């Protein structure tokens, strides 16, 4: 499985990657991008199976990235890993086509569940 982790914080990208390993996906190929705009380029060239994206990022936010992906016809699974947690934000993510929404700090069981769903 190829997983694209998108977060403007390098330490948070490492933490998400660590959580992916701890959730039992030690063999996953993890690639990174530091904002939504870079993620679009990486997604187009690397074709990840799933994208785990932060919500608030400079240059292009996670929700803007998702909308761009869908507008271009890319239906890759996208989930948010964010400190955002309001119902309005979750609804916005769902309406834009997000597959899941995980709050920071990441619950490893929840992460395992959503990644298993991708693997099926």
């Amino acid at each position, binding site marked *: 499985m190829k997983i694209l982790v998108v977060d403007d914080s390098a*330490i948070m990208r*490492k*933490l998400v990657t660590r959580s992916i390993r701890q959730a039992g996906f030690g063999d996953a190929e993890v690639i990174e991008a530091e904002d939504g705009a870079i993620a679009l380029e990486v997604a187009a060239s690397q074709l990840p199976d799933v994208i785990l994206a932060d919500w*608030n*990022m400079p240059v292009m936010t996670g929700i803007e990235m998702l909308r761009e992906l869908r507008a271009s016809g890319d239906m890759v699974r996208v989930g948010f890993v964010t*400190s*955002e*947690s309001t119902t309005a934000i979750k609804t916005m993510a769902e309406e834009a086509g997000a597959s899941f929404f995980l709050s*920071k*700090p990441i619950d490893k069981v929840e992460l395992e569940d959503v990644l298993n769903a991708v693997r099926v």
Partner: protein
Amino acid sequence: MITIGQTPLANLLEDLLGREVNLQPVDKVEPHEATYRGMVTDEDDLVAVIGSDLEFAHTTGAALALIPAGRLDGLDQPDDVLLEIYTEVANVMSRLVNEATIYRTRLDPGVTHSTEALEEVIKSGSMIEACTATIAGYGTGNLGIWYNPPAEAFHG
């Protein structure tokens, strides 16, 4: 009165840091300037500040990145690396502020507000969290969260 609640905060820190965290309430926290982290609305209105002493910032930063605790020995000046990681701790804690207040806020990514503006929130705002945190295996430090919504929140 708005409060964060020590149990949700302790649970969040334990989940984030992956180790036991004990919190004890305190009456007063004197944050170090280097630890001020502003929280803003989508309109960039500053509504809350997270701040701590250097011990809290350094211990949580080290614990989050799994940096050996020995790195903290004798550290009495701001450590840029640990403070950068502490920013992520503050970022995750911002979730609790969102859940406790009427505002959807986020950590100020561009540091668009001056130190003076952040200090004004600390001086004039309500202290919605004040505690001593003990991070197992790392150490102890003090954390405060201050909330100061725009005046229009109280009108019409």
